[in-house]
């Protein structure tokens, strides 16, 4: 692929991090490092996630009741805090997914007409 055609790696859109974290946690509970790795793998290293900003986001989501955290041992037997999606988080994921689809559809429509 030539340099001009290669897509630029970009930062996450504002608010998209919460949606992505909710989506990652939907399948199974995970700790902060695991979430960042899975996000990176799922986006094929395209998304430039600021790993440090993940924790403020996780705490915000816990404060809103979308995720619940509990301390347990990680795969290398270290003490880690695992985050699990709550029922309210599942509702929020559905709501944000619909909003995102609608938003991208509208933007796509405008771009096609333009």
């Amino acid at each position, binding site marked *: 692929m030539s340099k001009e055609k290669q897509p630029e790696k970009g930062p996450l859109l504002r608010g998209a991090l919460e949606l992505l974290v909710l989506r990652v946690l939907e399948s199974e509970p995970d*700790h*902060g*490092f695991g979430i*960042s790795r899975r996000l990176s793998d799922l986006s094929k290293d395209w998304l430039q996630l*600021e*790993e*440090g*900003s993940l*924790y*403020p986001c996780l*705490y*915000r989501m*816990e*404060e809103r009741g979308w995720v619940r955290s509990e301390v347990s041992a*990680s795969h*290398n037997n*270290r*003490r*880690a*805090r695992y985050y699990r999606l709550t029922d309210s988080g599942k509702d929020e994921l559905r709501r944000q997914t619909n909003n995102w689809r609608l938003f991208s559809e509208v933007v796509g429509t405008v771009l096609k007409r333009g």
Partner: protein
Amino acid sequence: MSDWVLGLVTWWNRRQRFTEEWTFHLEAAAAELEMLGFTRRDAQRAAKRRLGSTLSYRRKSLRAIGGDFAGLLGLLPTKRAARSPLLPPSMLLIGAGLALVFNPARLMALKCLEAMLNLGVQPPSERLIPLTPAGLVPVDFVGFALRILLVCGLARIALDLFPRTSLRLSVYATAVLFGVTFAAAVCWITFLQALVARSWAHDGVQGIVLIAFVFGFTGTVYKAMRLWWVDVERRCPVCLRLPGMPEPRGKQHDVLVEPLEVESICFHGHGLISESRWSRRFTPGEQLFPQ
């Protein structure tokens, strides 16, 4: 007290949480880089670089989980403490005590204080200023004025408070009155000592500062005495805590027959305090809810 300890422990745990998770993340990222062939030191350095500014993320995280100063205030029972009868006398005593502790000439300040409250004799000041002991300040007139204020305050307690309300409220009013007088005496001595100890470029400036302080001191003591009495009258005579949930009552156009009043209730159910521009009265809980 347990609420205070519980609040502090919760707040401390919140602060520890980010550090624990951050350390785990850093170590996991470094281990991943080590597996790619980095040396341990380079891996840790690269992981730190990838994670970014710890301080900035820590600040955001602590704000999100209430681990910052605002979160601490939210956890501690500060509103309950603000209504407590222990707050005014303890604040006055702590303020005066700190002023004495951090005063370099505290021994002379204590002697001046004794003389001011008529408990001891002040060392005599010499006619030649260098022979006058360091830290000695004039206290006779202000001491006399404060003693007069103390007697007036005690007379007011005896006439207005003691026959009508509980003994507990009279004791509280007396304690706070003594606290205000003591704090005023310490304030006078500390400021004058600082004023004399400083070398002034011009005597006129020192004089102006002294006059300004005398006026400011007089105004502050007057305001403190007014606040003392308002505080005493506002407190519940049974538990001495400040009431809350103020509710305006009355008719705005009928200020003489039915003046506007603010009703506040004691949170421990001891009664109702009604305040208007002209009067304050306490209605006990037994009259409000007769059995």
